[in-house]
């Protein structure tokens, strides 16, 4: 992504590097200390650690009184993120294809609707969704949150997949149709492989966004049995003073590391989404 981004060799770059380093310092500091604090001992008023320890990671094998088991919570988070991702992928790869290639009634309307929904303050729907889930009894169940989260991610997914399908040359499809394959067959075995980067990007985005989602599970499924990591951590965070901040940070690292790994491995694909616009 960065190759040949330099406009010319005529300028010295160290002044900008220095400036950027200074403004990036708070961020660097926060992330470096996040990792450092989880494996070291530090005096209360010291800036530098004085020794190594694994004590802050004891939550992995010990369950705190009154809190959910960390592994249960992790499994819930994984389940939540994975189910949301698969739902979004399946549904939007089908809908995107239809909007890109097939002539269905009200296509333009649907497309405009998806655009509007995508730029829509979806978090505001949470109040109505909360009341509805209470009425139909899906409150405090993972299924309810998964469906809601997937629906909220759908407009972006459909829009993105439509964009990727648009770039597939239609000779490919023509060839398939001429050879006598059905349109469904053409989509599944000829077109779908062409949009793999899009599926990758959307899948990763969905997974990361599901993994980090906070407000939906917090409101719709706060119970201990269905708790996800973000809610688990937020409970720590809300409880202002009575906890072990370093252990809390260790839980944070435990929660963050999968994200960083996924990001490090696949950031090429992800850029497609972050560049094109997610919320925030």
């Amino acid at each position: 992504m960065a190759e040949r981004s330099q406009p010319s060799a005529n300028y010295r770059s160290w002044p900008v590097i220095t400036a950027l380093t200074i403004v990036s310092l708070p961020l660097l500091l926060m992330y470096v200390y996040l990792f450092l604090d989880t494996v070291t001992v530090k005096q209360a008023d010291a800036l530098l650690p004085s020794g190594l320890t694994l004590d802050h990671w004891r939550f992995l094998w010990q369950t705190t009184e009154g809190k959910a088991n960390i592994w249960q919570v992790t499994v819930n988070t994984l389940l939540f993120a994975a189910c949301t991702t698969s739902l979004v992928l399946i549904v939007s790869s089908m809908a995107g294809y239809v909007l890109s290639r097939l002539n269905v009634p009200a296509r333009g309307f649907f497309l405009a609707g998806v655009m509007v929904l995508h730029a829509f303050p979806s978090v505001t729907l949470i109040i109505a969704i909360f009341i509805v889930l209470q009425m139909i009894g899906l409150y405090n169940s993972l299924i309810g949150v998964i469906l809601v989260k997937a629906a909220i991610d759908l407009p972006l997914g459909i829009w993105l997949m439509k964009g990727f399908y648009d770039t597939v040359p239609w000779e490919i499809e023509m060839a398939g149709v001429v050879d006598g394959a059905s349109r469904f067959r053409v989509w599944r075995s000829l077109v779908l492989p062409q949009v793999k980067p899009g599926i990758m990007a959307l899948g990763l985005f969905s997974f990361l966004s599901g993994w980090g989602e906070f407000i939906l599970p917090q409101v719709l499924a706060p119970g201990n049995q269905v708790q996800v990591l973000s809610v688990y951590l937020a409970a720590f965070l809300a409880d202002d003073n009575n906890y072990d901040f370093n252990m809390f940070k260790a839980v944070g690292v435990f929660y963050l590391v999968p994200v960083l790994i996924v990001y490090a491995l696949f950031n090429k694909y992800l850029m497609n989404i972050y560049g094109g616009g997610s919320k925030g």
Partner: protein
Amino acid sequence: MKSSRTLGLVMIAPAAIMIVLFFLMPVVLTAVFSMTSMTTATGISGGVYQIAPNSLIALKSAIPDIAAEMAEPRYTIDEAGLKAVEGLGLAPGIAGELRAKHAGEVFTARRDVERMLKELADRPSTRDVKQISEQFNRSVLNTRFDSKEQLFSALDSLGFKLTPEQKETVAKVTYTGWVWTTDNFSRMTTSPDMARVLLNTVLYVALVLMLFNVGYALLLAIWTHYMPPTPASIFRGIWLLPRITPVVIYVMLWKWLAWDTGFISILMGKFGYPPKNYLLDNAYNAWFFVVLINGFIGASMGMLVFSSAMKAIPKSQFYASEVDGASRWQQIRYIILPQMRWPILFVTCYQTLSLLASFNEILLATNGGPGNATEVWALSAYHTALRNYAGNLEYGLGAAMALVLVVIGVTLSLLYLRVFNYGTLVAKPLIED
């Protein structure tokens, strides 16, 4: 060959169903709920009719004499009471005589019913009279009625002579469920709290948007543009971290930085300043951090959009300007910025909506505090409807506040569709039937 149309309908059905069920229906319901007085107290399903002390207070201003009467117990000689008297194990004649002579009578005072009891043939003792009269005590106070009809028939049997209008007034005041109302909207337009929240929201969106989502993002993009590829990608990577970090951890990091046991406090402690909570210390500090926290996340998207737009500027323009002796500032001013007009417009539009609807970060960082200083509209709607200090969650009012955001969102995005030329996006499908 209509198969492609059928296939299209089948393939789009799951998306349509999900969007309708979990997207459109909630929007419609938000509108519906916003017209109700739903709260935790009224419940979300129907309510009952109950003459509670507070409804009597309300009745007093409307129909004072009837309200006063309702506050007093009444004594009705009815079948249920007679059965109870039979069960008391007193002389059997008492119940029989009451049933024969006095069934259906209503007494407005305990004194009257007791005088009547003493005149019975069996002449029950004073202790028994008290016991018997208690069986006929039919106060309407704190009794629950499932329907209007039950309420009215109870009032009738107790001898309250009410006109139909008075009955309706009583029913209205004593209903504990939610009702249709437009109060939420009038409350929104008149309450000074709401005005404050609105001001906060405008300030928040404007500050974050100008300073970070556009301003700082542009700066980042230009800085990394003039850098060798490796440091450029490193810095872009760093500035994407806030976006990919789950929001709970991200805010936790800021809290670690700003709390009274946090990094800034320790650092300032080295210079002799006492530790304090820089995040919630005063309104200015809270605002400073709220803007930083959201800005650092927002900067990344602008940075990516602007970077890719800058990459699209032909290199020859830069080379040519250098030959002409342009300074770096002149390059930025006359080459880069004019060609950034469109991306800047796009990012501004897009991020306005995102910022209006975002409240996760503020919720976790300051929760609207200190006081109400950093409470923005979306957060306030959330607080009103789902997490209230007072404990009574006002679903109706919260929905009305959310509806305002929905309306703004839809209006703005329709406007954007116009600006960004929707027509080119809906070109005809490549292959038709």
